[in-house]
């Protein structure tokens, strides 16, 4: 705040607005940089590993199953033992929850989990896979690709971490 009695010189005003302008552009540069630096929630990553958008206690009829795993649909199923243990409220063991690449080996349709029949079904040509991903009936020539599953968190409502190698 100038107490001088001279009228503010042109240079004065210019310098002031210049400084403000430079500060404004610096902020305009700084802002995207800060947003860039701030870590983001893990989204659909190139994904060698991600958590399913539902937890164990939402199985077997979870919404969002199959879900997008690195651009490919991933189906999560409960094994027969796993379904029993879940129903009884017992802790789940490894291999109770399984995850597969949900692309049918016949003509690439997306398969679905049928917990009431205990199988995996492809609606396009009635192909059937068992809960090990093995093709048991209909046209599919090969089993489903299996992913590794890790359960993490509070027993009873664990997160389902699905991962694959390369």
């Amino acid at each position, binding site marked *: *705040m*100038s*107490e*001088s009695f001279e009228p503010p*010189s042109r*240079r*004065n005003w210019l*310098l002031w607005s210049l400084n403000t302008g430079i500060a404004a*552009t610096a902020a305009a*540069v700084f802002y*995207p*940089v800060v*947003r*860039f*630096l*701030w870590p*983001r929630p893990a*989204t*659909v*990553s*190139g*994904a*060698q590993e991600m958590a399913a958008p539902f937890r164990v206690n939402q199985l077997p009829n979870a919404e969002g199953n199959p879900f997008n795993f690195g651009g490919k649909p991933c189906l999560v199923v409960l094994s027969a033992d796993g379904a029993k243990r879940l129903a009884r409220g017992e802790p789940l063991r490894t291999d109770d929850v399984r995850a597969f690449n949900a692309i049918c080996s016949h003509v690439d349709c997306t398969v679905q989990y049928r917990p009431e029949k205990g199988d995996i079904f492809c609606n396009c040509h009635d192909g059937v896979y068992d809960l090990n991903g093995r093709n048991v009936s209909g046209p599919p020539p090969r089993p489903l690709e299996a992913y590794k599953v890790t359960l993490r968190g509070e027993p009873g409502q664990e997160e389902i971490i699905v991962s694959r190698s*390369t």
Partner: protein
Amino acid sequence: MSHAAHEDTPQGPRLPQRAWAFLFERLGLEVAQSLAAKKTVPIHRCAPFYFLGGMALFLFGVQIVTGILLSLYYKPSPDQAFESVRAIMTEVEYGWLIRSVHSWSANLLVGALFLHLLTTYMMRAYRPPREFTWFTGIALLALFMAFGFSGYLLPWNQLAFFASAVGTKIAGSVPVVGEKLLLLARGGENVTGDTLARFYALHVVVFPLVTFALLGVHLFLVQQHGMSIPDREARRHGGEEKVRSMPFVPHFLLRDMVGWYLALGLLAALAALFPWELGEKAEPFGSAPEGIKPEWYFLFMFQALKQLPPHVLGIEGEVVGVLFFAAVGLAVLAIPFLDVGERSRRVLNYCAVPWVAFIIVMTAWGWFPDHLRLSVLLGTGLSLGMLVLTFPFLDRGGPARRLVNVLGAVAVFIFIAVTAWELLV
């Protein structure tokens, strides 16, 4: 900023002044201040070319900042590189901006360096005592082109992968040391994850360190010797001492800043309007896609090498080409020793013209390999543009201007002829 505009208030100096004084006393800033105050920039017809060095420096700064930011998200392994760049482009906030700025700025930087080279060459700024400024400058140019080459591979897309394979192969065709050079560059027989790791380390650690060292020397020498004044300008003003100069701070620096802000705006526009492509993920075992080419600053060499016959006088054509360009590079490095007198000076100056034209036409042709006519048009157009730009800096009525007139006429003629041919045939 030590300007008279900020007057002290009756209560004493304002806050900015007090802060400055605080730092000044403690950090020994009077050295810096005196250097800055002493530094002057001569004013003459060719003075605008002095901006190019600072422009390159600014763009390098942009590269450092955006490069550091990118390195926070980029993962240098073959399975993750492409995906991480994709994540940067699509998921990270403003990632597309940082990445596109980095890529565009790299190209602008090399362009600025080429122009800086050309203008210092034409102004003969390498005359004694500035030989080492020239040497470090050439080394820096080579270094920045190496920066570009190593950075090109990092996105690990098809284009990058095969361009790097071809580039390292050409390096491998150097006689005697070629094979070892290839193994060293690739980290093995083929381009693999080892190559990626190697290139990344070079790009992010080794080259920057060497650049800081060389740049430090380069800038120190510039500071030491001051800005060089071209002979002709000196003559015109009646001697070097008679040439007026402006203080670097604030006059030249503020003008520099105008240029820097223009560059910033240009980069923002390029990043938003022409975002850098992601490409397709590299498939090392697939066949090379059509139309791989290196970055534009290698294009003229690449295109020239393609034109050579398989064998020249019993030696492989490629080897001859590589050796030729290496020889030219060495010649450019040794220019201060080649420019010894009036005649050599003339020869060197006139050599520059066809050389620049060659580079422009070859680059255009490399960019549009199937459209020779289009590239000739582009080449002559750009050459014409360059000639027009140099016009104001040449003496009226002098031999240089006459030459430029002739060349300009030739370029215009070629341009019109090829346009007519393109349209009518």
